[in-house]
């Protein structure tokens, strides 16, 4: 067993949700420690730890924090809990099981970046998590961990929850800022980046739930101990949400650099009896799919997956066995991005719909062999041409599914039915 329970150590304990339960496991001790440090010391620690953003992009957290301008403007800290990347469900668990862990991580981070106000932007569908976190914030205020002059440190901080209302794009940090500002959740042009001009035009740091919670453990164990886990470029542990064709799907915390094959076979109990691994989506649906061969040699860190022209993303792993039709699965994915494109940039607005229509035409038996190239051309021209990365996220699955499983697409077009399932999905597409 290679599971390392750092963040998730006490998640099985139902009492951990309450402030008493959390404090009984040394909760808020690191906040006390932090308030006796210099904010810049904390930033340096986080920088040295090499902690990378756990939301998807993997950007070094300490570096992000150091982009804040020193211009005396109010700063905001926003927690991105709009976990929308399909097949990701780690933040939901973290908020439901350990709301105080997030809150403590946030107060420490807010102190480090000297922010007086933070919001936790939680996707609207997570009604239970919203209630749990709201309750926990009240408890934290009552205990004096939030509000004015926290624990006599002269540091004051307010925290609130904001509920989204159903839009994947609000997981993009500037889309989230727009949404929080009461607008449509459309991403904003960059530059300026949020650290310079973010929420309400003020310097803003946006971090994922898991990232903020990790800060506590960097403080607790120190840089060296934290770096014992993971690789040089991907230090620490990370939560992986595994779903699909495995015996035991779920969230698993393992050190970065862990073998994907081991996670699937050891932690997740392997595939269903008699089934063979076909493919793995390694980091949410926008991450290019890996073939069986690639999956078997992949390690779970940012650099290995980047070398494989895919990405670690949010750490959500979808295991696909040999009973699955790749044409059908791609259709589910293209439908999703068509549904979620915010519509402001033309290549994404029009391209996501076009991709979905072509895949649906193939699924309905109306495809032509030319469509295979058309799909790749459309996707190629959606990449890197828009304000945010949704367009790329929509293009990358196409650019991996089609070339890697080309014969399945060719078969479907030729025969009008799925090579694997022997049926046509004509009646079942969205």
């Amino acid at each position: 067993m290679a599971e390392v329970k750092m963040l998730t150590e006490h998640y099985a304990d139902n009492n951990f949700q309450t402030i008493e339960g959390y404090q009984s496991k040394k909760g808020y001790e690191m906040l006390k420690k932090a308030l006796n440090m210099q904010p810049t010391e904390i930033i340096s620690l986080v920088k040295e730890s090499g902690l990378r953003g756990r939301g998807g992009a993997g950007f070094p957290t300490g570096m992000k924090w150091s982009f804040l301008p020193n211009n005396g403007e109010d700063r905001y800290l926003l927690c991105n809990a709009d976990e929308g990347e399909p097949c990701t469900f780690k933040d939901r668990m973290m908020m439901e099981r350990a709301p105080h862990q997030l809150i403590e991580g946030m107060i420490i981070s807010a102190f480090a970046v000297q922010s007086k106000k933070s919001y936790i932007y939680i996707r609207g569908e997570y009604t239970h998590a919203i209630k749990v976190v709201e309750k926990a914030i009240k408890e934290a205020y009552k205990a004096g961990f939030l509000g004015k002059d926290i624990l006599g440190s002269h540091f004051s901080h307010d925290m609130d929850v904001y509920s989204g209302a159903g839009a994947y794009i609000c997981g993009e940090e500037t889309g989230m800022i727009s949404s929080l500002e009461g607008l449509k959740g459309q991403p904003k042009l960059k530059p300026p980046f949020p650290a310079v001009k973010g929420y309400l035009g003020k310097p803003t740091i946006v971090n994922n739930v898991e990232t903020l919670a990790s800060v506590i453990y960097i403080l607790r164990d120190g840089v060296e101990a934290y770096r014992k886990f993971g690789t040089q470029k991907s230090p620490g542990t990370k939560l992986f949400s595994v779903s699909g064709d495995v015996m035991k799907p779920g969230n698993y915390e393992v050190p970065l650099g862990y073998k994907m094959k081991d996670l699937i076979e050891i932690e997740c109990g392997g595939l269903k009896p008699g089934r063979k691994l076909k493919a793995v989506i390694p980091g949410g649906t926008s991450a290019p799919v890996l073939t069986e061969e690639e999956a078997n040699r992949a390690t779970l860190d940012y650099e290995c997956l980047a070398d494989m022209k895919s990405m670690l993303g949010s750490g959500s792993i979808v295991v696909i066995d040999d009973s699955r039709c790749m044409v059908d699965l791609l259709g589910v994915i293209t439908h999703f991005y068509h549904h979620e494109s915010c519509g402001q940039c033309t290549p994404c607005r029009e391209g996501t719909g076009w991709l979905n229509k072509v895949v649906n035409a193939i699924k309905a038996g109306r495809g032509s062999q030319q469509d295979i190239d058309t799909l790749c051309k459309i996707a190629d021209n959606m990449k890197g041409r828009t304000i945010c990365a949704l367009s790329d996220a929509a293009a990358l699955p196409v650019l991996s599914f089609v070339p890697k499983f080309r014969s399945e697409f060719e078969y479907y077009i030729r025969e009008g039915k799925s090579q694997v399932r022997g049926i046509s999905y004509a009646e079942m597409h969205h």
Partner: protein
Amino acid sequence: MLKCTINGKPVEVKPGTSIIQAFKQLGEEIAHYCWHPALSVAGVCRLCMVEIEGNPRLQIACNTTVAEGMVVTNQSEKVKDAVKWGMDFHLINHPLDCPICDQAGECGLQDQYMKFGKYDPEMAEKKVNKRKVVDLGERVVLDSERCILCSRCVRFTEEITKTNELGIFNRGDRSEIGTFEGKPLDNNYSVNTVDICPVGALTSKDFRFKQRVWFLKDKASICNGCSTGCNVEVDYNKEGIWRLRPRYNEQVNGYWMCDVGRDVYKNVNRVHTDVEGERGEKQVKKSISRLVQAVHRLNGQSEYMQTGFAVSKVRETLSQYKKGDVALVVTGQQTSEEYEALLSYFTKSFAADDVFHWQNNPEAWGEFDGLLLRGDRNPNTKGLIKAFEKHKVKSTAWTQDLGKYKLVLLVAPENLAAYPNIREKADLLKNNKTVVVLTTSQIPEFANLPDETWQIPMKSFMEKAGTFVNFSGLEQKFAPVTTIVDAAVSADEFVAALNGQALEQVQKIYTNPTERVENQFIFQRGSL
């Protein structure tokens, strides 16, 4: 100043200049739809792609500021390919209904397609259907299928008028521009959205289906709708004037003009029928006609005649009168040159105290809507007051019965919509023996005065050269656009004739006969 290189040409720009502004400054072509110099940067059409040396990723020129030494191009194959695909994304769901689209001929999609079209469409799927004829408000119609969602119109109502009628609703390729039920686009600047719409999505109810733009010519002029004096472009052909569009002048009107001003061309055309109400529903029509011939009316009998003959008769009558017998009534609607001619003639021949200023709504002259429209609906009140001062004219506001004068020379306003009290004013003239009215339009109230009336057809502002002095004292000269009424004279031509010159020698006609021939040729070819 920052030095940079654009398409191989060196250029110096002010710090903070965006790459697209640098392109414009240099006069280099760059494709774009959503960027507009007077609106915030949206960065959504993704057409203004440029390649910056040292940056592997293409950038949009509208949201990238020039840095010292930057080397930028939009001529590389990489950029051209990106724009080509950008165009294709714009067009895959576009209805391509150019034959029935009013924007055809001045459409951004057509223009860019000629340069960047793929010419080999790969889109084989069904297009997204959206609403075709959406009534957005009093003056603007939306075709959602043609819309490329550049958001210029939405930003205009957010940032310029701050009226917020428009929004983009829904998301992805289901997004549509729209208004909220019961809150139509009815601000006084609504037609600017049509001007800035780069495609045929927003069209003007007044203009649509009337002309193909390639049959129109345009000339610069100044709006005479109020004392702001917005600079305009006049679109016309041999049949008349078809629309006004704002012409950029940073000092006066920026990029915009108001909807009230859009209508002033109607006073210029021979017959203008204002249609109110929806198509198919009950329509209310009111029509105003230009006065196209001089009319002499005496004892209930009207006699039509050549303008020159009428003016010579008026001259004969005036020669019998001395100081105190004749009054002059003027409005703020004429050019400074006309005021100069009228006042120097009148003060020499008659009494300076007998000049009356017809003020339509002086109590509202100080009003201002905060954008462009001013309460003084005269283009040249300042010019008139200047002329009064020069000629030491007392300038009495015209409120009294002018019966004590034997003859009243009245220069009637051109923009009748701004003069609602004509009936009352006509009553002040019913005790006069002779009234001479210089007028652009037929004004029934003045045509039927009890005694002798002369009506002399007058040139509209688009048929003459001149100067308007706007509210701030800015003198704006303008050239004639065309001649609509051959028989019409300007007030200064009229005065020259009163001074004894032959009218044929002073009256200028501005329609170039070759223009007519050219247009006819096109019409004929089109009907073959």
